[in-house]
């Protein structure tokens, strides 16, 4: 009776392949972790470590950006924009850029609506994260994934 044959070579290949895959997966996980850490630190630096709620922010970003050198970003935050209750600042972050900070936009009750637009650089496909700081200190967050065809940092 014939046994299913596994040669020494194919066995080594199998093991070797497994090790390489595991190493690669480990490296990617580390990179992702480093990005998340950089993002968390940038957010902490900007607004402290208060609790963030999801919602109130609408991010207007393309699903696919052909050129990472100039990606249009628009956003609006729900708020009555009165002296007693308004959006103070909206911080924008990009977790996979060399530095996570993108811009901090400061509003006043005179803004009427908390709405703004600008153009940003993105190093690659990644989440754009917005954190809104209200006049009473509460924090809201939102994020959106943008696929970038050509990265826009360095080169």
């Amino acid at each position: 009776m014939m046994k299913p044959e596994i040669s020494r070579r194919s066995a080594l290949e199998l093991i070797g392949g497994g090790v390489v895959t595991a190493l690669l997966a480990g490296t990617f996980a580390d990179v992702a972790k480093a990005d998340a850490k950089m993002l968390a630190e940038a957010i902490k630096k900007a607004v402290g470590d208060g609790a963030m709620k999801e919602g109130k922010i609408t991010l207007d970003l393309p699903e696919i950006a052909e050129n990472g050198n100039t990606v249009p970003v628009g956003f609006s935050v729900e708020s009555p924009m009165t002296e007693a209750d308004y959006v103070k600042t909206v911080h924008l972050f990009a977790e996979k850029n060399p530095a996570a900070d993108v811009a901090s936009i400061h509003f006043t009750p005179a803004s009427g609506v908390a709405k703004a637009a600008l153009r940003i650089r993105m190093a690659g496909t990644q989440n754009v994260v917005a954190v809104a700081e209200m006049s009473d200190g509460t924090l809201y967050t939102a994020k959106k994934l943008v696929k970038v065809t050509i990265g826009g940092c360095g080169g």
Partner: protein
Amino acid sequence: MASKPRVRVPKKAKAGEIITIKSLISHKMETGQRKDKKSGEKIPRKIINKFVCTFNGKVVFSADWHPAVSANPYMSFSYKVMESGEFEFTWTDDDGKTVSKKAKIMVS
């Protein structure tokens, strides 16, 4: 070096109307990440890091920009006009130099 500041502000508006203001300035916004192709050395960072809009002398909108803001930075935002007056827009470079532009609005 910042040059050619451009702003778009409506000339007239009704009291209480929320207008949209658009601004644009020519600037390389050197990130500090790029390398000189010949020498291989990093090109130092040089960006506009601050944009401020005042109305009749009072700050009504401002922004802090990091190197991730694109070259020739564009910014649009809103303002609720209550009275006639003058906007002043100021862009501040990393080296401290500023460029300003003014625009008037008539409120009926």
